[in-house]
C-alpha cells in the first residue's frame, strides 16, 4: 500500500519533471523561430521528409477509411431510405473527426517516430555536440525546422486524407452501391460548412495535433538517453504519447467546436 503510493508519487514526479523540461524545450524552440525565419529553406527541406514522404500512407489510409464509411453508412441509412445523405455522412465524419485524428495518428507512426529516432541518433553520435562546438545552435538548425515543417505538413496531410476519403466513399456509394451521384454531392454541399466543419475540423484540429505531435517527437529525440535502448524507448514513447494526447485533445476540441 505504502509502496504503491510511493511508486505513484515517484512516477508523478517523473512525469511532472519531464513536462517541465518539455515546456522549457518548447520555449527555446519558439525563441529559435526568428533565426529560422531568415532561412526558411531549412524547414522546406524537412517538409519533404515529414510531409511528402508521408503522402502514400496518408492517401492509402484515407481511401480505405472513406470506403469503409461508404459501406457502413449505406448499411445503416438504407433501412430509412436515406441513402441520399450518404455524401453528408461521409464528408462530415471525415472533416470533423476521422481526417485530422487518423492523419495525426498515422503521422506519429510514420514521421514522428522517424523524427525522434533521427534526432536521438544525432545525439548519440555526438553530431549535436559537434554542431554546438561549431557555434551552430541545434535549436535553430535541427529542432525548429523539423517542428515547423511538421506543423505545416499536418493540416495538409489531414486535408488530403479527408479529400481522398470522400473520393473513396463516393466510389463505394455511387459506383458500387448505386447511390445517386447528384444527391451524394449536393447533400454534401448543402450541409458541410466551410467555417464550422472544414476550418474548425480539418484545419484547426490538425494544426493543434501537428503542434502536439511534433513537439513530442522532437522533444523525445532531444531528451533520449544516448544509447540504442534509449532511442528505441524514445521512439516508442513518441508514438504512444502522441496517440494518447491527440485523442484526449480531440475530445476537448470536439466539445468546444461541435458540442451543444
Amino acid at each position, binding site marked *: 500500500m505504502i509502496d504503491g503510493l510511493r511508486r505513484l508519487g515517484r512516477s508523478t514526479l517523473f512525469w511532472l519533471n519531464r513536462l517541465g523540461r518539455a515546456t522549457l524545450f518548447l520555449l527555446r524552440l519558439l525563441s529559435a523561430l526568428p533565426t529560422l525565419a531568415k532561412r526558411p529553406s531549412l524547414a522546406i527541406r524537412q517538409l519533404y521528409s515529414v510531409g511528402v514522404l508521408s503522402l502514400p500512407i496518408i492517401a492509402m489510409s484515407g481511401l480505405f477509411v472513406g470506403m469503409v464509411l461508404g459501406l457502413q453508412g449505406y448499411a445503416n441509412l438504407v433501412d430509412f431510405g436515406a441513402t441520399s445523405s450518404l455524401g453528408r455522412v461521409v464528408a462530415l465524419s471525415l472533416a470533423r473527426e476521422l481526417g485530422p485524428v487518423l492523419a495525426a495518428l498515422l503521422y506519429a507512426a510514420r514521421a514522428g517516430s522517424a523524427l525522434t529516432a533521427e534526432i536521438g*541518433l*544525432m545525439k548519440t*553520435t*555526438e*553530431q549535436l*555536440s*559537434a*554542431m*554546438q*562546438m*561549431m*557555434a*551552430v*545552435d541545434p535549436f535553430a*538548425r535541427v529542432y525548429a525546422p523539423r517542428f515547423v515543417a511538421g506543423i505545416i505538413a499536418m493540416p495538409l496531410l489531414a486535408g488530403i486524407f479527408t479529400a481522398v476519403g470522400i473520393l473513396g466513399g463516393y466510389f463505394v456509394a455511387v459506383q458500387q452501391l448505386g447511390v445517386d451521384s447528384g444527391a451524394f454531392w449536393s447533400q454534401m454541399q448543402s450541409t458541410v460548412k466551410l467555417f464550422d466543419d472544414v476550418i474548425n475540423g480539418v484545419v484547426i484540429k490538425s494544426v493543434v495535433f501537428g503542434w502536439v505531435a511534433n513537439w513530442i517527437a522532437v522533444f523525445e529525440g532531444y531528451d533520449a538517453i544516448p544509447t540504442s535502448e534509449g532511442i528505441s524507448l524514445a521512439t516508442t514513447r513518441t508514438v504512444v504519447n502522441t496517440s494518447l494526447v491527440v485523442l484526449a485533445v480531440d475530445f476537448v476540441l470536439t466539445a468546444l467546436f461541435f458540442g451543444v
Partner: protein
Amino acid sequence: MPMPNTPFSRSDPPDPPPLITVRGLTFYRGDRAIFRDVDLDIQRGKVTAIMGPSGAGKTTLLRLIGGQIRPHAGRIEVDGACVHELGRRELYQLRKRMSMLFQSGALFTDLSVFDNVAFPLREHTRLSEALIRILVLMKLEAVGLRGARDLMPSELSGGMARRAALARSIALDPMMIMYDEPFSGQDPITMGVLIKLIRTLNDALGLTSIIVSHDVKETASIADYIYLLSEGSIVDHGSPQTLERSRSAWVEQFLHALPDGPMSFHYPAAAYAQDLSLAQEPSP
C-alpha cells in the same frame, strides 16, 4: 606523494599570457569527482598534450573548456573570457574561434564529406559557393581525402572519418583546436601524416593545439608541454624532455606503459573477492 598543483613551478616562461587558464576546477559525475581542484594553463601557439588513462576525464576536460558542461567549482578562462559565465551568444562567438575534433569524428551522417567540411563555412560566412569549393578542397587535400569528397560518412573507415572531421574542424581557421584522440584507429603511415599535420597546422596558422591522447610516443613527439591526468588531478606536467627525465612513479608507469604503479587500470570498485561473493561465504 601529491604533487604541487602550480603550473608555474616548472620551466615555462610566464609570458605571453596563456590562452586558457584553468583554476581550481572541480567537477563531479554523480558522487564521483572527475576533477578535484585542477589548475592548468594552455600556452598560446603551443601544442599541449593532456594524457591519462582511459576514464581519467580527458574528454570531459575538453567539454568543460568548450563550455558544453559547467564546472561545479573553479574558473575556466579562454582568451580572457570565463567560459561558463558567458551568455549563449557570447559563448557561440567564442566557439567560432575554437574547434574540437571529437573522439568519434561526429560527422553529419546526412551530408557528404564535402558538405560536412563546407558546413561551418556555409553557416558562418557569406562566401560564394565557388570560393567555398576551393576552401573545402584545400582542407580535404591537407588530410588526404580530396578524392573522397563525394562519399557519405557511412562509406568511410574509422580513420578516414576522423580525418574528414579534422578537415571540418579547421574549415574556419580557428585560433585553437582540441583534438580528442586524433591517433587512435589510424595506421602508422596516416599517424605519421597526422602528427606532421597537427604540428604544421599549429605552426603555420599560429594555432594553439590541445591533444588528448593515450598514444604516448606519438603525442610526446609533437607536444611542447604535457599534463598527466589521473584520478581527478594533475599528477605531473612539463615538457616531454623534463617528463622523460622525471623519476615520478606516475610518469614511469604512464610513459613506459607499465601495468603496475600508482595509476589504476580499474574503475573504482569494491574489493574483487567481495564482488564475487568469495569473502563472506565459505567455499564449498
